[in-house]
């Protein structure tokens, strides 16, 4: 009888190096499934786990080993992730008060800044959080560059990272227009003119962004949609892929650490 609870192996399990995760070599699989069916009865956690296998994945992820020598430079990636989360949260609160229209945008920000409880504070967090996130993403990129962490087998994660960098800069650019004060307006005019000088697609892209003969009503709505839906969605999805690869491949050991050759090094090509 085919075992109904048999499930495909999940990423965390394989990279767990035996530390905590359920063993997942094919032979024990079936039995394990039955076990899950037996144990799964207890409580909400058990219920969710029986249907998702989440604990296996989570223990695998949490108790996976990080290589010897992992130091503070390795916190820069998660710090970037944290800054992005902070931006998402403060951004939601800003969106509750902001109106993306050229006649009301400025006033809605004035209202938010002056009248709303903690309004200026949250706006400040979003504004300076952007600066902090940019700094962190560059530092994190610098770390992976100087540590040679973009080399085999992590090339793909570097490529995803560069796309994340570009998208983060796009966030900075589109967010800058939204307060719709003089600074932001004129900076956007210049940025748009610069885009228009680009070869082939430049003029079309500039037209698309401006969405009209001048930077104005339609531009601000477009930038708003890009800034709070399109790009954050892409960033979140790509961070997911980035994190998946980090867990799957493991983070590098610092480059100056050389492993002494293990005595009877078995040839083992499995990653992670």
């Amino acid at each position, binding site marked *: 009888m085919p075992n109904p609870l048999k499930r495909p192996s999940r990423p965390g399990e394989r990279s767990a190096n035996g530390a905590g995760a359920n063993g997942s070599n094919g032979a024990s699989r079936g039995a394990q499934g039955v076990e899950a069916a037996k144990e799964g009865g207890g409580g909400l956690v058990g219920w969710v786990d029986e249907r998702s296998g989440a604990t296996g994945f989570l223990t695998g992820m949490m*108790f996976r080993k990080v290589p010897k020598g992992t130091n503070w430079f390795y*916190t820069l990636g998660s710090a970037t992730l944290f800054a992005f989360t902070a931006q998402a949260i403060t951004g939601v609160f800003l969106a509750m008060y902001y109106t993306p229209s050229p006649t009301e945008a400025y006033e809605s920000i004035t209202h938010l800044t002056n009248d709303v409880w903690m309004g200026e504070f949250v706006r400040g967090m979003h504004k300076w959080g952007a600066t902090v996130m940019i700094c962190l993403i560059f530092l994190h990129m610098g770390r992976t560059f100087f540590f040679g962490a973009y080399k085999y087998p992590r090339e793909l994660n570097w490529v995803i990272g560069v796309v994340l960098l570009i998208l983060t800069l796009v966030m900075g650019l589109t967010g800058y227009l939204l307060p719709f004060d003089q600074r932001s307006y004129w900076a956007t*005019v210049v940025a748009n003119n610069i885009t228009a000088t680009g070869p082939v697609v430049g003029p079309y892209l500039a037209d698309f962004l401006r969405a009209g003969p001048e930077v104005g009503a339609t531009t601000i709505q477009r930038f708003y949609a890009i800034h709070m839906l399109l790009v954050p969605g892409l960033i979140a999805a790509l961070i997911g892929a980035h994190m998946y690869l980090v867990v799957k491949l493991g983070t590098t050991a610092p480059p100056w650490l050389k492993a002494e050759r293990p005595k009877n090094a078995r040839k083992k090509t499995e990653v992670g």
Partner: protein
Amino acid sequence: MKQSDKEQYLIEYEVLKKKGKPFFPYAVAKDSAMALVVVLVIVVMSLVLGAEQGPKVDPTTTTYVPRPEWYFFFLFELLRVIKPPELVPLATIGIPTICMVLLLLLPFYDRNPERRPQRRPIATTAGILTIIAMAYLTFLGAAAGTPTEIDLEVAAEYEPGKQVAAQSGCLACHKIGENGNDGPGPELTEIGARLPREAIARSLRNPPQGMPNFSGLPAEKFDDLTLFLASLDGE
């Protein structure tokens, strides 16, 4: 990277990983401490620096110097370093695009298996030079400030136009006398000798690439401005 290098790496990595500590709690503790620092920095910046609102947008009076966020200064400065107009698209689009493509493809052309920074002199030097160049350009951008003053001595009749020029942000891209930035636009100190007044007015109404449109200026200010610029003939 040769197949043997790959295998070698994976074997060594496996050993170093086995000797490591579990992600939880060791790495999680460090990450959390770092997250705390990040949130503290953001909160302190927000409290100390606040979130001031600039003057309301006004497309007609252009009294504002277009200035990007500080993290785009290096791009903006690039425009100033590269002056010849036919090269402007290169600076605005070409160089950033090339840099991004080079960055994206890095793992594909740097196929050296070595990872220690001191054993990768080319990569490490290139990285450090890039950082220095970006820091220098950012510094230049920050030091350029928000220029709204023109120190040129002019006859009284040209004073109003001088004020308009100073307030309209021309100095962000043009040098006039001792003030303003040397690029991306050409120096205007002797513009009157090069262009008649009508041609200057045309440049403002149908601006060349990379310059905002100033046709929205009130007619009187516009006239003052062109009068002032046409008077700058190097005398």
